[in-house]
């Protein structure tokens, strides 16, 4: 159990993600998590607002089950397979984050400044989670996929559009971390 409860090295984790994708392909499906956000919209009645949400909900049932599983997996991993949730973060990242006021960098799985309801309200960080989530949902659908659909499935199938999307993911991420974070947090 020691091996399981340590953080998993990249060379174990990465191939396992690929196995998930290959399993779904062999099941006649495709690996794409953000599609579920569209399915949820449709199930909530968004098909009345836009034809984009007129989809066959039954055909998406397997994928909804997949994300229910993803949540259960998070529960299982955090409860039974982890002795510590500290992240062995690089020293340079820790120093920058400390200067931004993220005092638990290297000691916690996610920053308390973002993942405690109390601090979200007190620090006004709530708006960042709302904005961040909105951009992820909007951007994933605009780009036609997220990390699973483009960075893993698309690139594995050598799709040029997916490469462009992944370049976009990084352009956006680098812009946020290097230019916008210093404005927001320092």
């Amino acid at each position, binding site marked *: 159990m020691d091996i399981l409860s340590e953080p998993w090295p990249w060379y174990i984790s990465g191939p396992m993600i690929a196995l998930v994708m290959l399993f779904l392909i062999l099941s*006649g499906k495709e690996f794409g998590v953000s599609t579920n956000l569209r399915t949820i919209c449709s199930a909530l009645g968004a098909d009345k607002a836009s034809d984009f949400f007129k989809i066959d909900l039954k055909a998406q049932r397997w994928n909804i089950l997949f994300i229910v599983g993803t949540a259960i997996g998070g529960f299982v991993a955090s409860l039974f397979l982890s002795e510590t949730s500290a992240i062995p973060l690089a020293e340079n990242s820790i120093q920058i984050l400390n200067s931004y006021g993220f005092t638990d960098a290297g000691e916690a799985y996610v920053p308390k400044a973002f993942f405690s309801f109390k601090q979200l309200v007190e620090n006004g960080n709530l708006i960042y989670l709302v904005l961040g989530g*909105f951009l992820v949902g909007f951007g994933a659908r605009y780009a036609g996929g997220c990390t699973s659909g483009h960075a893993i499935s698309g690139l594995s199938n050598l799709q040029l559009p997916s490469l462009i999307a992944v370049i976009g993911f990084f352009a956006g991420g680098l812009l946020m971390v290097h230019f*916008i974070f210093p404005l927001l947090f320092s």
Partner: protein
Amino acid sequence: MKAIKFLLAGIFFGIVMFKSEAASWYRIFEMFQFDAFHMYGVMGSALVVGVIGIQIIKQFKVKTFENEPIELCEKQKGYKRYLFGGTIFGLGWALSGACPGPMFTLLGAGYLPIVIVIISAIAGTFVYGLVMKHLPHY
């Protein structure tokens, strides 16, 4: 009952997302800082196995478990939607520290404020559906 395998695949994926720390806001920050190889290793090794796996499926015309032919969908040509949409996604990914899979992993792991991110992501998807006709795609 055939659907249960997708639930199990999701559970496996959720465990991998948590244990690989791909669901950690901090790891995403560190990745965009280029301070560690970890996340690049996760994605790079996933791609090595993924590319080889898909090549095998194509070369040997591997069938699905139900013995149907496998048709991998080709992404539509063009670049605007991928570049613009991708950049918007990247901004949100770095800010919220979660892409769509890890959002659900974090929910299960008990980091409840992630609910705010999930609801906002659903809202973002909805707004895209409303305005998509006015956006450049190809």
